[in-house]
């Protein structure tokens, strides 16, 4: 299955570059050390570097952030092709909705996805076991056959477990977790939704977050980052996978996703028409405060 997807990806990438349809194809390649990493293919001859397997977990939409402005003033924004799993396409949907990139500047090579595995195992990642869509909601070309899998129902078990604790226990849990953070910002850099020119964590006037690598700064960054992703986080888990300290960031994001679904009946990136919940309101809604 992944063999045929890989072949189809290479063929499609070569074609797009040869025809001059796109300036670059963003996909995955194998690094000299054997792991899969993002690849930027500019020449048709390089298309064979592209790979596809169950470790292509990176969300490549994050690389579109650098490609929304022209390389030089007065030039056109170049069109790029990007390999996208269903979850990645939802992230792209968020970017499109927020006017970050023009639809015609991206050629979406959608991949029917059987799920990504935990590093070094054949076990599906938790988020992939829960995944509700195996084919991207939109694409310009689709690669692969929709896989036959039965998605488990979303039970929010990980979030519910923490909710069951007392506030003091939760505080202790998060104090321990936040305290391990080294403020490297890998989570933010990997996140398709974090594209601010000046992140609140690095803003100096006003200085909301001090420069110390201490608990208050770290907690502030995490709580506020998760909140900035409210109704926008597509649970691609790129942040958690990028974290060198294995901080369970998905718990923060999923708690918010759960509440957003409960309060506003909204799921990020699923529908290009409805605006994100915190950018809109209904006058007559009753919200528990």
């Amino acid at each position, binding site marked *: 299955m992944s063999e045929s997807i890989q072949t189809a990806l290479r063929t499609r990438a070569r074609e797009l570059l040869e025809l001059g349809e796109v300036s670059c194809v963003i996909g995955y390649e194998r690094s000299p050390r054997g792991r899969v990493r993002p690849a930027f293919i500019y020449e048709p001859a390089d298309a064979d570097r592209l790979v596809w397997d169950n470790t292509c977990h990176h969300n490549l939409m994050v690389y579109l952030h650098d490609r929304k402005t022209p390389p030089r003033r007065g030039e056109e924004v170049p069109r790029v092709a990007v390999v996208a799993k269903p979850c990645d396409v939802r992230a792209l949907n968020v970017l499109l909705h927020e006017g970050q990139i023009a639809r015609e500047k991206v050629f979406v090579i959608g991949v029917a996805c059987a799920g990504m595995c935990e590093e070094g195992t054949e076990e599906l990642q938790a988020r992939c076991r829960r995944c509700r869509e195996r084919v991207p909601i939109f694409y310009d070309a689709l690669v692969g056959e929709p896989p036959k899998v039965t998605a488990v129902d979303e039970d929010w078990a990980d979030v519910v477990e923490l*909710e069951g604790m007392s*506030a003091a226990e939760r505080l202790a849990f998060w104090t321990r977790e936040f305290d391990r953070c080294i403020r490297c910002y890998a989570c933010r850099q990997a996140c398709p939704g974090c594209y601010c020119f000046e992140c609140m964590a690095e803003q100096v006037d006003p200085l*909301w977050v001090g420069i110390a690598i201490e608990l208050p700064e770290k907690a502030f960054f995490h709580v*506020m980052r998760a909140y900035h992703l409210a109704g926008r986080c597509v649970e691609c888990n790129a942040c958690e996978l990028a974290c060198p300290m294995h901080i369970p960031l998905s718990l923060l994001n999923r708690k918010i996703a759960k509440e957003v679904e409960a309060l506003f009946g909204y799921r990020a990136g699923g529908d290009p028409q409805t605006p994100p919940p915190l950018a809109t309101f209904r006058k007559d809604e009753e919200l528990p*405060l």
Partner: protein
Amino acid sequence: MSDNFEPRIVGFLCNWCSYAGADMTGTSRIPYPPNIRIIRVPCSGRVDPLFVLKAFQEGADGVMVLGCHPGDCHYSEGNYHARRRYALMHRFLDFVGIEADRLCIDWVSAAEGHRFAQVVAQFTAQVQPLGPWNGLQRRRR
């Protein structure tokens, strides 16, 4: 928690309704708990959730966000945005360990001097038994 603990409460009050309402409380000589420290903001919609978190980290035991009643916002819709924002923030802060009872979002109009006193008294009484908040802060060394 000791009975004489006096919670420190930060209140973000919108200029057009709640702040004027608090003024009304004063001019009508209605007593209310001195625990609240008032910060005037143009609109409840201006209260970025990071203000709230920052207040908790800088020593507040409870935070109130007070605005105009829905439908009465000076800027038409600021409080509708605030309502959504804090409905979510409330649940999220609780999840990271800041008890839901430490945050209050409510509506007080410029004419509701009595209501302002009541809301503050109620919230102070609600925070009092929780004791001082000192989580997610700089640790004393």
